[in-house]
């Protein structure tokens, strides 16, 4: 094989499958002959190799700039209703910062639940939505009273509560307050505590008792059923991916949450990466800002390549860089210098900032190559570093 054809082979090897599929589609659509198709492939490869990244390109800086330059144009207005009857979610710059900070819990956790084919109708969707919505005792109670004389807490319940619900209320209360006697008479729920119980403790119990979990999935604060194309979708405020995925009606493949860490825990790092990408892209698009997905991909990869989600910032990607000087220049100068001394660290001067500091050519772009000029066999013949 000649060197030329070898080169061609390697480029066509790099051609993403997506482009190959496109070529197939186009040539089928236009009923191209074999030779025409070959020509098309050649032409695509030519275009592709022209548009390929050049070695040394400081792709990280470009991505960072491409994301933060439009961020200046984003609104600060935090909340917005997603969809006409949707749920309030954090948007704009605050959400963007939240994503890159890899906050443990988003300000507005949200889930999008898709349903399996056989349950994909409004009846099932509404039923499921009702079932998963978290309800505590407060939802069913109208009034609460503390009877110190008899060591009793009396809760007046709403009318028309189903028997099954009443049973769950009874059992969950009994489970929570083992020392008390729980009973329901008419619409009054009574908890009788032993007579040696401290008054203060009773007061405390009165405060927390209404938050006793009764039904639904904990964390799901509100639900909204929506139609999205052909699908019935449940949007939830609050997120609990692992519990939701256990439900038989739920389409496990499509259901998602906007909580990066939760996704990482339940579905793994690749899923977390996808959440970062999707959330960042949709936040940008929602603001009408046009940013190439490749930049987001790079940030998401930098945040997740170690196998765990790392935030952009001093405790994440930037804080775990190899160079002491680059870290010291970023944030917490003193901490990094004292630690480096203690651990006898060595800065290898392989990054950008370190070399800027000492006034050397940066090892990226045109600074990555070294010119070795050979003028005949003369005295200039072997100018080389080292």
């Amino acid at each position, binding site marked *: 094989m000649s060197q030329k054809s070898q080169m061609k082979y390697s480029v066509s090897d*790099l051609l*993403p499958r*997506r*482009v190959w599929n496109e070529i197939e*589609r186009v040539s089928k659509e236009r009923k*191209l002959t074999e030779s025409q198709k070959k020509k098309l492939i050649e032409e*695509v490869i030519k*275009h592709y190799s022209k*548009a*390929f*990244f050049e*070695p040394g*390109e*400081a792709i*990280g*800086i470009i991505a*960072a*700039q491409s994301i*933060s*330059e439009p*961020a*200046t144009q*984003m609104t*600060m*207005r*935090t909340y*917005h209703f997603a969809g006409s*009857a949707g*749920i309030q979610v954090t948007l704009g*710059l605050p959400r963007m*910062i939240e994503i*890159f900070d890899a906050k443990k819990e988003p300000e507005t956790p949200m889930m999008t639940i898709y349903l399996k084919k056989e349950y994909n109708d409004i009846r099932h969707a509404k039923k499921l939505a009702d079932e998963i919505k978290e309800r505590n005792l407060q939802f069913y109670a109208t009034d609460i009273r503390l009877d110190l004389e008899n060591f009793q807490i009396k809760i007046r319940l709403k009318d028309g509560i189903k028997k099954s619900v009443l049973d769950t209320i009874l059992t969950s209360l009994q489970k929570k307050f083992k020392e008390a006697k729980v009973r329901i008479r008419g619409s009054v729920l009574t908890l009788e505590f032993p007579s040696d119980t401290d008054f203060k403790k009773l007061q405390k119990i009165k405060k927390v008792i209404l938050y006793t979990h009764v039904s639904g999935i904990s964390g799901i604060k*509100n*639900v909204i059923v929506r139609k999205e194309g052909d699908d019935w979708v449940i949007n939830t405020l609050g997120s609990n991916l692992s519990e939701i995925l256990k439900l038989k009606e739920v389409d496990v493949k499509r259901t998602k949450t906007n909580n990066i860490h939760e996704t990482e825990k339940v579905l793994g790092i690749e899923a977390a990466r996808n959440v970062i990408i999707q959330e960042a892209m949709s936040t940008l698009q929602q603001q009408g800002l*046009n940013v190439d997905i*490749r*930049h987001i*991909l790079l*940030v998401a*990869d*930098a945040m997740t*390549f170690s196998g765990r989600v790392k935030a*952009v*910032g001093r405790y994440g990607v930037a804080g775990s*860089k190899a*160079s002491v*000087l*680059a870290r010291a220049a970023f944030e917490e100068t003193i901490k990094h*210098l*004292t630690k480096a001394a*203690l*651990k*006898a*660290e060595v*800065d*290898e*001067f*392989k*990054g950008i900032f370190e070399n800027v*500091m000492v006034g050397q050519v940066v090892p990226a772009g045109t600074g990555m190559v070294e010119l070795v000029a050979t003028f005949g066999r003369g005295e200039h013949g072997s100018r080389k570093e080292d």
Partner: protein
Amino acid sequence: MASVKKLEFKILNPEMIKKMSVAKITKTELYDQEGYPVEGGLMDPRLGVVDPGLRCRTCGGFIDTCQGHFGHLELTKPVIHVHYAKFIYNVLKATCRECGRVLLDEADKKELKESKSVSLKSTLSRVKKKCPYCGVEQKKIKFLKPYTIIEDGEMLNPQQIRERLEKIPDEDLEFLGIGEGNRPEWLVLTILPIPPVTVRPSITLETGERSEDDLTHKLVDIVRINQRLRENIELGAPDFIIQDLWELLQYHIATYFDNEISGVPPARHRSGRVLKTLAQRLKSKEGRFRGNLIGKRVNFSARSVISPDPMIDIDEVGVPEIVAKELTIPVRVNENNIEELRKLVLNGPNKWPGANYVIRPDGRRKRITELNKEEIAKELEPGYIVERHLQDGDITIFNRQPSLHRMSMMAHKARIMPYKTFRLNLCVCPPYNADFDGDEMNLHVPQTEEAQTEAMFLAAVPKHIRSPRFSGPIIGAHKDHITGLYLLTYGERMFSRKEAVQSLRSIGYEGEIPKKKEFSGKEIFSFLLPKDLNIEYKAAICVGCDKCKKEKCKYDAYVVIKNGKLIKGTIDEKSVAPEKGILLDKIEAKYGSVFAKKFLDQVNRLSIEVVTMEGVSVSTADYDLPDNVMRDVEKILKDTEKKVNQLIEGYKKGKLQLLVGRTPEETVETLIKTELSQALNKIADLVGDYVKPSYTVIMAKSGARGSMVNFVQTAACIGQETIQGKRIATGYYKRTLPHFKKGDMSLESKGFVFRGYKQGLKPFEFFFDAMNSREGLMDKGVKTRHSGYLERRLIGALQDLKVEYDMTVRDSAGKIIQFIPGGDGLDPSKISEGEMDVTKIADEIFSK
């Protein structure tokens, strides 16, 4: 060339400090009575020179050749280094108080080593209560900020601590997170390095008084207390006095390292100013790292106010003559340029184009003056270097802060002009985000050929027409250019031969112009297009019909270019504007950046020519609506108000049908909101239909400036003022302003403005409008800060990522982040939006 290959960080040890030292500091005075520095004092002449003309006593160098030398101070009693106090505490906790071994048994050690989690943290979590080696019971140790360590209620003094640290065997150090070659006892200082005077130069004031650096002040304190402590010990002073002085020495040395320790009162200057000590010098934005090492000051740069000049090319910058006379470029004299350079030298430094300096082959610099210029010109021969003035065509780098992306610094060719502002073409305003309300910009002149070439090939304006952010043009014609192109190309407007020839020739069109009496605007525009260009797209004036009629569009909004001829459609925002121009994008992709630059220059000038010919002007009368339209608007508003009042009534009576998952309040607000937006849309449609044609409307529709929303707000009705996306909230008790009744939820009281700006606002409407714009202002301030920090963090995280020769993306440690850059290897600044368009490529090759 010498280069820095690596930098090792270690803890300074006492022997090293002594070895480095050239002077032992013993005296507290700085200068004697004659004003000479005292030997053994803190300004010891052996520590280096700061005064011009003097020689260093140690190395014999002058001020620019001697970097200074360290001295040392022997501390009477050892002292803890503040920044390591917490660490020392942790080490004491993890080691035996008797034998100094780490409180881990062999099994633990082995396990930690095997699981590769050897660190101080993991050691601390496994510490035994009893030493596994000597069996001594460990006592409880407490740490008291900032630098006190207490064992069983008794304070450990630095001497005791040091003794304990000394006992720790070398092989245990790795479990304490101490790097190789370091010893923990070095963290307790017995000897203090005294930095050279060059680090803390004293300034001589005009009065002849000397003013010392903050560090010197601090060191004087340390030396003085050290002295007093020694004297007191020698005198056999009582323990508590010695203890106090020791504590004081500890305080002074702690604040010498860091004067911002929490819980410690900062050391102050006599005037009450807080001293800037070592940590403060390095820290934060203005510190050594961020202020001097990452950001540096440069020569060969200029800054001035900018102003527009549509007649220069987009890759040019107008440089004032006085700036050009200051900024120079070094040129090596050779046989070919010697005459030319001689002329420049003869012109001298005051006449442009001239030269300011020559550098002789022996490296001596000579300033050219009016007196010696003839002499120097005669002397000139190959090998000399002439620093000549900036001339037309020289490569410069132009920059506007904030430099948010790489297009904020682009290479322009200089063009020397009269007056004092930098001139730039309007097409490059978007990438710089520049306007002319007083903006200033910076200009840099690359000095070496290497730098100039690099700037020319990588940073030149044409190379940046396409932004890497969204793969589309970021440089393009906008504002008046769009108006001009719209006027030129909309419909079948005819221009006389005179007009056509004048406008084409004035933009530098050199091709043939056919002998025709009249030209249509579309024909004139077509002269700028390459002959094999084919493209179809929808223009910005497209109204979005249900079914696009394409070429037969009655609004002339469907652009068809066939073989370089504009056949149908209007050239407007969608064709050439930054971030939107489809035509510009296509031209850049197909014919390259140089052609695109030429195209832009011509479009730019042609449109200005048309605008000038036409005499575009606007008037407030543009905003007048016919009476019947005004009546209709009023009617819509009345109807809306009625509907809203019904909603409010329904809400108050509790009869409102609730939306899913919403409270009654939320429901009524949402319903009102939709009602209002419907009404405003109706008004906008109405105004759009009946507005009389004017330049104001043309600008809005073509996308040159403003929008129909602005127009409606001025002419008819502003609509709802919002704060944080909601109708104005009740700031007073149950009402927005005291003019309304409590509980009033009507449109008027919640900030709906019924009038347009032109008709004028009622007082409270005006107030609500001001509230809204105030919110906008506050938002802007907060936003710039937050997004600025976001950028800094992103850069901090991604700065070292680059594409390697094996086409992987790696960080500076060589770890692979991506196997193919961007997932598919395509550089967004080299492709048209999105990705490879196979269909388009197929069109290209099979259409012929």
